[in-house]
Every structure is written in C-alpha cells, then in structure tokens.
C-alpha cells in the first residue's frame, strides 16, 4: 500500500480526466468548439514526454558518474516511454489540427521540431542495438542521450518561439491559459498533466522490472 498509492492516484486521475474529457462542460470557443477537450490529452502527453526525457537524461548522467548498469536500463526505458508518448502526442495533435487548422500536418516549426526529436531518439535506439558489450553500450548511448537531450530542448522550446507558429504561446500567439481556458477546464487540465506523467512512470517501471528479470535470468546461465 505504501508503494502503490501513486498508482491508485494515477488511475483515479485518469478516470476523472477521461470522464470529464468526454462529458464535462467546456467553454464555447470559436473554431476550437468541442475540440478543446483534446487539451486534456494532447498537451499533458507532451508534458509527460518532457518529464520522461528529463528522467532519461538524468539517469544517463548518473550512469556516466557511477557506472551502474541498472541506471543505463532506467535511462533506456524512460527514453522508450518518452518515444511512445511522443508518437501519441503527435497523433492526438494531428487529429486536433485536422479540425482546427484544416490540415493534420501543417508546416509548423513545432511539428518539425518534434519530428526531428523523434528521429534523434530513434537514432538513440539504433545506436544502442549496435553494441554487444553492456558497459560500452551503456557509456556510448548515455553520451548520445545527453547530446540528444541538449539538442532537442532548444529545438522544441526556443526555435518555435522565434518564428511564426500555429501553436498557442509561440510566435506572438497568446498562450493557452489566457483566453481559451476557464476554471472548469483548469480543474481537469492540471490533474491531467500529473495523471499522464504518473502513467508514463508506471509503464516505465514495469518495463524496467521486466528488463531486470531478463538480465538476471540471462546471468544465471
């Protein structure tokens, strides 16, 4: 019970999010209309992805400092889940864009940034799979993980703000909070961020356990 309170919290929050997302009240907005409900899913997925990437880079640094192979596994699995969240965020964004911007994939700097980011992390997994030796793989992929993190963050946070973007909060557009949200939406939006992030951590922890079991089993023989 001590260990699992956050899992229960996660389930409760996500049920609350989904129910509110489907039947809850939202403000009437021009163009956005009912698609504003996507803000409970699309935006928190990106927040979750960022958190997971930070965790992945953090464990990469820890691995380089300590050389503990478990940290390398943590780092890889966090990156894995971050990638999943990235793809999901991309898909929900495409659905949303289809109805509000009239095009699932418009030429938007933030979309380009995310496509590049997903490519970077895909390269990370290819790099991982090309080494046999555990320590060598851990060290080199940790180094690349940190480079990828340092390349991705300015790409997605700074560059879109300098050019014109369709996304709110970029290129002179007002951010979400200003006009589109009212308190009813905020009551769901902020818990949703926590809920999706917790789910990401949960998925990652399960995969890490699986990996550790596999490694221990392989070591027995």
């Amino acid at each position, binding site marked *: 019970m001590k260990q699992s309170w956050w899992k229960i919290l996660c389930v409760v929050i996500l049920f609350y999010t989904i129910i509110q997302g489907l039947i809850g009240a939202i403000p009437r907005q021009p163009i956005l209309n009912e698609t504003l409900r996507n803000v409970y899913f699309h935006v928190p997925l990106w927040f979750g992805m960022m958190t997971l990437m930070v965790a992945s880079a953090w464990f990469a640094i820890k691995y380089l400092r300590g050389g503990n192979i478990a940290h390398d596994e943590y780092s890889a699995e966090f990156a894995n889940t971050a990638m999943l969240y990235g793809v999901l965020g991309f898909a929900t964004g495409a659905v949303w864009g289809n109805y509000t911007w009239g095009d699932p994939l418009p030429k938007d700097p933030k979309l380009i*940034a995310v496509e590049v980011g997903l490519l970077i992390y895909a*390269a990370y997994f290819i*790099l991982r799979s090309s080494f046999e030796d555990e320590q060598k793989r851990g060290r080199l992929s940790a180094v690349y993980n940190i480079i990828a993190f340092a390349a991705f963050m300015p790409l997605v946070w700074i560059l879109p703000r300098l050019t014109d973007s369709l996304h709110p909060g970029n290129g002179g557009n007002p951010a979400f909070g200003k006009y589109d949200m009212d308190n009813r939406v905020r009551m769901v939006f902020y818990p949703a961020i926590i809920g999706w992030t917790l789910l990401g951590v949960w998925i990652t922890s399960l995969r890490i356990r699986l990996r550790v079991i596999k490694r221990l089993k392989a070591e027995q023989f």
Partner: protein
Amino acid sequence: MQEIKALIEKEIRLEWRQKYALNGMLLYIVSTVFVCYLSFTLKVNNIEPITWNTLFWIILLFTAVNSITKSFTQEGAGRQLYYYTIASPQGIIISKIIYNTLLMLVLSLLGFLIYVVMLGNPVGNLPMYLVSILLGSIGFSTSLTMVAGIASKAENTSTLMAILSFPVILPMLMMIIKLSKSAMDGLGWETSYDEIGILLAIDAIVVSISYLLFPYLWRS
C-alpha cells in the same frame, strides 16, 4: 594550450602526409558540384535561387559528414591508446574540433568557389554569405566531431554516422539556410542578428557538451 597546439599540428601534418584523403575530399566536392551542374543547368540553364542555396548546403553537409567521419577511424586502435596515455581527453577533443573546423573551412570555401564558377553567383550580400559559411563550418565540425567519436566505437561506423548526425545537425542546418537565404537576397546585417546569435549559441552548447562528455567516450 601547449598540448592543444601540438595536437593540432600533429593532425595537420598527418593530413598533409596522407594527401590522398584530402585530395579525395576535394575531388568529392568537385564531382558533386559537377553532377549538380550537369543535372540542373546544362539543359534548362536556369536554377532557382532557393534551390541554388539549398543544394549548396546539402553538398556541404555530405562533404562534412564524409570528411569528419574519418577523424577518428583513420588512426588505429594502438595509436589511440598511445594518445590516451600522453594526452588529456579534453585536449584531444578540442584539438580535433579546431582542426576539423579548419578543414571544413578550406573545403567549403573551395567548394563555394567551384560552385559559383559552375552554377553562377546570385548572392546579393557576399560578406554575409561568407559569414554564414564560416558559421556553418564551425557548426558542422563541432557537432559532427563528437558524433564521429561515438560512431567510431561501433562496427558499422558510416551508417551510424549518418543516422546519428543528421537529426542533431538539422536545427543548425535550418538556421544556416535561413541566414544564407537572407544573404542571397542582399538583406542587411541587422535582419539576421537573431540567426547568427542562435547559431553561436548552439555551437557553444555543443562544444561545452563535447568537452564534458568526451572523457567518458575516450575511456572505452
């Protein structure tokens, strides 16, 4: 400082002794430009300014990837072990970055010359275009040197080099193409301070990361 100077000198001397590598790179850039010349201007005799610019940077990108890949692979494992015993990893990465910058600068300026001769020169603001070439060379060599270091430890170096380097270099490439496009259109300097600043900032980030992380790479 003394160490870095000695290492750069060693790199240049090494390159000068094996001239085939340098000549190979030069021939590579000349033939690529010639292929573009044949396919773009021979029949139609007309090339759009945007295509001109993009093509030039793509040629430079591939030249950079090809020439920087060998900065770690051309020295055998034994000799690397020798360097490991006598030089600090920081000195080695900084010297390699500086040397690759010089190499890229030479290659890209020569490439630009050949390119202008063959495909015409629509550049409006030449000094600014040269600055963008300078920034591009620095940017390519800084980010590719570290990636080359990673890729050289694996078996399939050249594939891995391409996969690892292209996404990392894309944001830089976008900025450079934007900067050089304004230079082509003959816009003034004040329109492009943003891009120059961002490019320098990205370079600074990459150099500092390489400086911090290379010791871990070098150990293996």
